[in-house]
């Protein structure tokens, strides 16, 4: 009996835990009722994650499925194979990459709000702002040259999109 009371109390307290700001719950059927261009797979997640939250703690979201909402600011004009969306915070921006031909983002999506579901992934790109230092023979092991080279590699985070709704 004591155990059941403790269990009930724990469950009650757990249910009272406030929803994190980053997790915006979507009302039942809200996604299904959204009017707009539906692309790819149906959206399955019930809560959106803030783009800024993903960018602040990327390791927490790597290989995890997320639903994000934002305004489309740029797109791949030739193949429609990626688009960038921004959130409500300034500088909050993420690229949605899709498999070529599976989803084709239309140019008319620019400036519109969109819900996108997909998996967060990272890619390493060379930082264009830095010149790659040459690690020649004169650089002894442990001179830090390799680290400098490594420093020129920038990790960026993107979402592998599987489904999206471009709102009207």
């Amino acid at each position: 009996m004591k155990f059941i009371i403790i269990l009930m109390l724990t469950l009650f307290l757990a249910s009272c835990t406030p929803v994190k700001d980053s997790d915006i719950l979507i009302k039942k059927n809200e996604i299904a009722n959204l009017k707009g261009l539906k692309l790819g797979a149906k959206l399955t997640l019930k809560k959106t994650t803030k783009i800024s939250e993903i960018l602040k703690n990327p390791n927490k979201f790597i290989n995890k499925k997320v639903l994000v909402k934002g305004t489309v600011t740029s797109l791949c004009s030739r193949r429609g194979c990626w688009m960038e969306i921004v959130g409500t915070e300034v500088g909050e921006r993420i690229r949605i990459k899709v498999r070529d031909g599976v989803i084709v983002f239309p140019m008319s999506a620019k400036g519109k709000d969109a819900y996108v579901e997909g998996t967060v992934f990272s890619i390493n790109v060379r930082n264009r702002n830095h010149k790659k230092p040459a690690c020649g023979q004169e650089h002894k092991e442990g001179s830090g040259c390799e680290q400098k080279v490594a420093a020129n590699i920038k990790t960026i985070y993107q979402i592998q999109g599987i489904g999206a709704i471009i709102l009207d």
Partner: protein
Amino acid sequence: MNKWRKINNILHRDFGYFFAGLTIIYAISGIAVNHINSWNPNYIIERKTFNLTYSELNTKNIISILKTLNINETKYKVLQTDVNLTQIFLKDKTISINTKTKKIFYESVKKRAVFHAFNKLHLNHIKGFWTYFADFYAFVLILLSVTGFFVLKGKKGLKWRGTILGIAGLIIPVIFIFIF
């Protein structure tokens, strides 16, 4: 004429007639997307850069910028998309104002009506039923190739011309596969 050759010729002729239009559509789109690195096969994009003369951005200045660009649309969305970047989204147009570099980037997008429609079919953006119809068309193309060899008999058929040209046409892609 043999019965099987008659059927072969009927299949070749009628499927050829039926899919002539789609073959032309796919061929035109094929040429268009083949050169995707040198041009945009779906949209005509016009880009212009102007200098920002205002020290700050406010509604009045934004309206004034739109007027300067001969944009009379009243429905637009203004969004600060980065620390120094404000973007104005209009139908088929985007104006990006960089307050740091004091530059205004104007971009207008116009659909290439025919190519966009043809590419939509060729690259199967439609999905659904079109996927199956396109599969059927691909199967018919194989059928047309095979039946084509048996339309004529004798020297103008497989006995000479058909074999020589058929092999020659196959050698070219094989060479490219091995060289590149």
